[in-house]
């Protein structure tokens, strides 16, 4: 190797770093991660997605396909050092250290104060509610004596470097060694630091923790306890376990200094391979099971799950909606976080584009668009006539857009949010729109089929509980207008936040909750959408914009 070799890395806002190259056989993605710049390697570093793309400004890089000279866009997971390079990492390729995580929720059920773990005041008097999501993990500390929330801490699930969805994680966990690595990523690199962080915020030592409850999808809970998730990767997707296991902290190698090894951790019960404990928690926390009128729970996260309650009967289905509404896979997409465009209004004749950025920064400093802004875009671009039925820019309307807002990426049309900001301008392309339409069609069709099988219409539903991070900034009227929640009225929709975490908290505070969740979890019928004959037809119908 060349002694003292350094790679120049350019980040947002002109920040530059020098990264020493010690091992030329490592990929750029691995080198960046080693130096505190983890990239979005959501396909599991297999070179299949555009998550970790960087711009090669100067020098050259090596890939399996040969030498790549500057300037070029390269996948960092496929590129290796070749003696000298200056790269620029766009904001959207980075996994930020502080994601905006939904730590808030609405609880609609009454709760007795009879904690799952009896408190010893001043000795062991707090407990943790933990939601292990595919993308993000939240740890909440509650006082068992008062029932009060003491602190919350959230961050990325560090398993993300093995892949951004459950299927790539299952694939990664095929071998016992990698399964151990996945467990360690979520326990030692994710939950443990969040727990310590929450204790610091609560100003209480870890040795006062009496126990915890854990919510999450079925795959996440398998990986957490070290069970082989392989059967979840192939039909009929049979889990190794669903019932609410009680484990000890040391059994999953959660052994930070001060925590008693036998500290009990209660997993919430799941429903099926693709309807997890997070959904059981949501059904419970929303109180939907007891609603007098038909009700729906729609949880839009990395997957989209939905549950219908009709006359006490519960039916659930999961859709492979994909993470488009979390901003993943879109040209300028990002999660809902500080600096993301969250609201957008577009008008033609005259052309007007108004935006709002989370945290109040000007558009020129925004780092991407989050799901709610894309929903706004689809709704207002369609109602203004800029977009046609199939999500393409209408020719005449496109010509009426000021030239400074019209861009082309590889010959594909894209609308720039700002004026003439060059190649890096925030924009929405027709390819983005196609991906969004596919995600919205999966959810819209799932809802339609779920209602149809019960002989119901959207208007028959009393309440639709919209859960997950995406809902928090959402303009519900726009979600209805684009057919994401087809046929509903805004007054039916309740935005409820992270109900998986809410359920975990309720299970902590009221010991009867767990038995009720066990009962609920066995009562839910699961509908396999792929086997419903007219699902495909409904999906294709929902690809269009109303």
């Amino acid at each position: 190797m060349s002694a003292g070799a350094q790679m120049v890395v350019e980040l947002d806002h002109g920040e530059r770093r020098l990264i020493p190259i010690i091992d030329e056989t490592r990929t750029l993605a691995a080198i960046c991660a080693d130096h505190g710049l983890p990239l979005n390697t959501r396909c599991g570093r297999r070179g299949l997605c555009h998550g970790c793309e960087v711009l090669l400004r100067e020098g050259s890089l090596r890939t399996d396909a040969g030498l790549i000279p500057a300037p070029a866009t390269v996948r960092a997971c496929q590129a290796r050092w070749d003696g000298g390079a200056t790269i620029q990492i766009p904001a959207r390729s980075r996994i930020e250290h502080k994601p905006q995580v939904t730590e808030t929720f609405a609880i609609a059920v009454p709760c007795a104060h009879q904690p799952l773990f009896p408190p010893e005041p001043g000795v062991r008097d707090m407990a943790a509610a933990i939601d292990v999501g595919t993308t993000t993990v939240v740890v909440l500390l509650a006082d068992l004596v008062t029932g009060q929330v003491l602190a919350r801490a959230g961050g990325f699930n560090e398993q993300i470097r093995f892949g951004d969805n459950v299927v790539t994680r299952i694939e990664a966990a095929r071998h016992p060694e990698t399964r151990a690595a996945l467990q360690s990523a979520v326990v030692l690199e994710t939950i443990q630091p969040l727990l310590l962080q929450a204790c610091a915020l609560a100003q209480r030592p870890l040795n006062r923790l009496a126990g915890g409850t854990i919510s999450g999808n079925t795959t996440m809970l398998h990986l957490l306890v070290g069970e082989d998730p392989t059967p979840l990767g192939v039909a009929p997707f049979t889990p190794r376990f669903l019932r609410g296991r009680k484990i000890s902290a040391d059994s999953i190698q959660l052994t930070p200094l001060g925590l008693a090894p036998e500290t009990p951790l209660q997993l919430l019960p799941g429903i099926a391979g693709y309807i997890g404990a997070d959904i059981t928690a949501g059904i419970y926390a929303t109180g939907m099971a007891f609603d007098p009128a038909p009700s729906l729970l729609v949880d839009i996260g990395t997957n989209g799950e939905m549950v219908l309650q009709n006359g006490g009967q519960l039916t659930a289905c999961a859709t492979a909606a994909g993470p488009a509404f979390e901003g993943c896979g879109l040209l300028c997409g990002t999660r809902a976080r500080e600096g993301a465009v969250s609201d957008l209004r577009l008008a033609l004749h005259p052309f007007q584009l108004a935006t709002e950025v989370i945290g109040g920064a000007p558009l020129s400093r925004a780092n991407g668009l989050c799901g709610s802004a894309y929903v706004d875009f689809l709704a207002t671009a369609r109602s203004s006539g800029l977009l046609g039925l199939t999500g393409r820019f209408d020719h005449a309307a496109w010509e009426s857009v000021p030239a400074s807002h019209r861009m082309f990426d590889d010959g594909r049309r894209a609308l720039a949010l700002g004026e003439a900001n060059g190649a890096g301008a925030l924009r929405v392309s027709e390819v983005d729109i196609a991906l969004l339409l596919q995600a919205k069609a999966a959810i819209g069709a799932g809802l339609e089929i779920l209602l149809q099988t019960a002989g119901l219409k959207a208007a028959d539903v009393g309440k639709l509980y919209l859960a997950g991070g995406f809902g928090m900034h959402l303009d519900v009227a726009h979600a209805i207008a684009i057919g994401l929640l087809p046929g509903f009225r805004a007054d039916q929709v309740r935005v409820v936040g992270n109900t998986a975490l809410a359920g975990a908290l309720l299970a902590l505070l009221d010991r009867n909750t767990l038995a009720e969740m066990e009962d609920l979890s066995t009562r839910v019928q699961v509908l396999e959408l792929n086997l419903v004959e007219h699902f495909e037809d409904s999906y294709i119908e929902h690809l269009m914009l109303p």
Partner: protein
Amino acid sequence: MNDQHPLTQAIIGGRRKDVPQLVQQCLDAGETAGSIVEHRLVPGMAIVGDRFKRNEIFVPEMLLAARAMKEALKILEPKLVAAGIKPEFYAVIGTVEGDLHDIGKNLVAMMWKGANIEVIDLGVNVPAARYIEAVKQHNPHLLGLSTLLTTTMPAMRQTVQAIREAGLSVKIVVGGAPVTLEYAREIGADAYAADAASAVDAAMSLLHHKP
């Protein structure tokens, strides 16, 4: 070839609801079912495939076009059978064992039908033994294997292996989101299709290499 024919345009535009009436008009004007397929539908799907390859249309519009064509075939297929018209080429297609996704596979099936290939669809979650049985029964020129899940790629490998071990010489085309050209070569498939449009190209190049 008349690209401007209203039926061809309705297929390209994915306007399913207009299709039955337009097919009926063709029939009323004395066109045979075979001629409608050949002169109205096939050119439409060829244009859809070309536009997709040129990035002029995307997956949603392609699915809409395929659904419009399906509508036309619903009317025409019984007439083709009644007239005893036999297509030149046959294909068997299915999603491999363990995977229930079929939208991508159905799109390929429709694109192949749009290229005038008779397609026998085995559905989803198809074990190797059923592919073998279907190949023996129908003796197709092509076999299409699809998968959407990374976790069912091994089932694709096993299916190719089982077909070869059964001594069947059918040309195998593989595709689906996690499948790559390298993987297709590694498992011994005859062709790889990155998407539904290239599945037609793959089929055509295999069919025209036939002696």
